[in-house]
């Protein structure tokens, strides 16, 4: 006995229900198509929202994960002391703390010179990524060139450049920073901290893993460094990114709401199909009742039929949604695999689930109506 036959032996209602769907193929196909459209609407609109969110958060870059501490000039503080940095380090726990000295200087390469910002950072690897070359940790010799300056001067890792009449070997060209960041070194150059002629530290960047960690770190710094006087200003954007996240969650829900309208319409069409089908099969159902099928058995058969429509529509719908999601992700992110992320998978599951539930619910009334009829009335032709 084949596996399908064995399945039907075990679930005889499934056999009757499946065969019943084959008798009006066109009608069944149209009802399934309705569910397919509904599932695709829910799943792909949901994926669309989630892709939009990923794209928007990607554009914001690391903004939400960074805390920037600077001297509070209103209180007459012009630079941060070693003691401030120590306190910031203590308050930040495991997060990378990057103190930055800053001045202006002339960068020369290949006979071209540019006036740019010169940053003195001893541990830039904690806050920056290289697009070529490697960032030494700590940075003791050599220089790192910002992406736009490197392009401007046509500098590559391994070249030698002159900064304020001192010659450096370029260790790395920094990766372009996505979106905007409180600290943008794209047009500048980074050298070891002790080689910057500046009186003190102008900025400390704390790089955390998540937005909520950034928020917590900012509060810890505020509590310890600004304990007695407001020595430093603390800038962090995690709340902004949280608000952006919550906006996109609302947007996704709204889009799904629109999608579910089409699923409701599909449910009405299944209701119609099932009702027609039970009216046409009135006598057959009467015979089933006469030969000993209980009302509940009839309900089960018809609900199985309706659910099969939903499962069929759900499977096809999810398949199409993955394709549509991949297309959306390709256009918005340039990465079609984003359509298979766990966030997107939730929407496929939700689409499938609502598709099946809508179908089963739509089958409920016709099933109840057919089961309630007395066999003698059904058979009186």
């Amino acid at each position, binding site marked *: 006995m084949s596996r399908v036959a064995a399945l039907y032996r075990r679930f005889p209602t499934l056999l009757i229900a499946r065969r019943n769907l084959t008798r009006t193929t066109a009608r069944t196909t149209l009802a399934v198509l309705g569910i397919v459209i509904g599932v695709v609407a829910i799943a792909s609109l949901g994926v669309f929202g989630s892709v939009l969110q990923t794209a928007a958060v990607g554009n914001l870059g690391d903004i939400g994960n960074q805390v920037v501490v600077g001297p509070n000039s209103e209180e007459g503080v012009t630079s941060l002391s070693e003691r401030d940095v120590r306190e910031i380090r203590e308050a930040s726990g495991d997060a990378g703390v990057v103190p930055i000295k800053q001045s202006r200087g002339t960068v020369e390469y290949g006979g071209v010179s540019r006036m740019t910002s010169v940053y003195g950072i001893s541990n830039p690897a904690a806050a920056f990524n290289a697009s070529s070359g490697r960032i030494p940790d700590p940075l003791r010799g050599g220089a790192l060139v910002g992406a736009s300056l490197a392009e401007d001067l046509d500098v590559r890792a391994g070249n030698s450049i002159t900064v304020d009449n001192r010659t450096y070997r370029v260790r790395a060209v920094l990766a372009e920073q996505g979106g905007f960041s409180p600290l943008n070194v794209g047009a500048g150059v980074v050298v070891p901290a002790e080689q910057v002629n500046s009186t003190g530290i102008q900025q400390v960047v704390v790089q955390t893993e998540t937005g909520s960690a950034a928020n917590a770190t900012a509060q810890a710094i505020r509590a310890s460094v600004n304990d007695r006087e407001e020595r430093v200003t603390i800038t962090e954007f995690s709340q902004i990114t949280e608000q952006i996240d919550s906006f996109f969650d609302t947007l996704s829900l709204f889009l799904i709401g629109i999608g579910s309208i089409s699923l409701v319409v599909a449910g009405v069409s299944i209701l119609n199909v099932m009702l027609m089908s039970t009216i046409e099969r009135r006598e057959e159902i009467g015979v089933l009742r006469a030969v*000993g099928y209980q009302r509940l058995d009839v309900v089960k058969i018809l609900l199985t039929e309706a659910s099969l429509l939903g499962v069929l529509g759900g499977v096809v719908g999810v398949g199409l949604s993955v394709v549509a999601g991949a297309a959306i992700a390709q256009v918005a992110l340039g990465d079609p695999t984003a359509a298979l992320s766990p966030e997107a998978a939730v929407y496929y599951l939700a689409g499938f689930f609502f598709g099946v539930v809508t179908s089963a619910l739509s089958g409920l009334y016709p099933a109840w109506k057919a089961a309630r009829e007395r066999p003698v009335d059904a058979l009186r032709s």
Partner: protein
Amino acid sequence: MGSDGAPVVDATGLVKRYESGGGYLEALKGVDITIERGEFVAVMGPSGSGKSTLLNLLGLLDEPTEGAVRIDGRDTADLSDAERTRARKQTIGFVFQDFYLIPTLTALENVEVPALLDRDPETRGRAADLLGRVGLGDRTDHLPSELSGGQKQRVAIARSLVNEPRLLLADEPTGNLDRETGRTVLDEFTRITEAGVAVVAVTHDPQVPKYTDRTVDMLDGELEP
């Protein structure tokens, strides 16, 4: 359950009234009938005489307005819908005039239908046996649309027997068949009665009484003496 000697079905004082327009239509006006085990009874009479109504009452498909139907000596008046359904399944087989086979199931599956939900692994063998007995052993995988009228009727008879009933109710079993096929069906009924199954056939067909143990005539909702 009744004792072994009790008739399969015993009906007394059956009255069935339908509301029609302002008044009542009386389809049965007090019918008494007793069917013993293995008895073959034909119920004859013109259209509208109440034959089908009687058959529906005996088969627990409908409830009498007055009177009682006892199956195996047990009164059925107070049974719930689920209990009546169970009693039909255990005791009664039906053969309908229009066969009412399920068009999407094969001949064999149609025979299995009454027992399909029991998930009894022996059902299939019993169904195949029954199909063989009515001469359709080579048609098991045919759909009803691929069968002739006589073949469909024989599938319907096999279906009515799959739950091993003690009472078989047939509504115009030969009505849609030519004489030759009709005789095959009646022979089959005779064989069933020899196995102890009571058969009640409602019919117009004059050849039926030749096969039966007794024939009752109905007119205007009453049995003719």
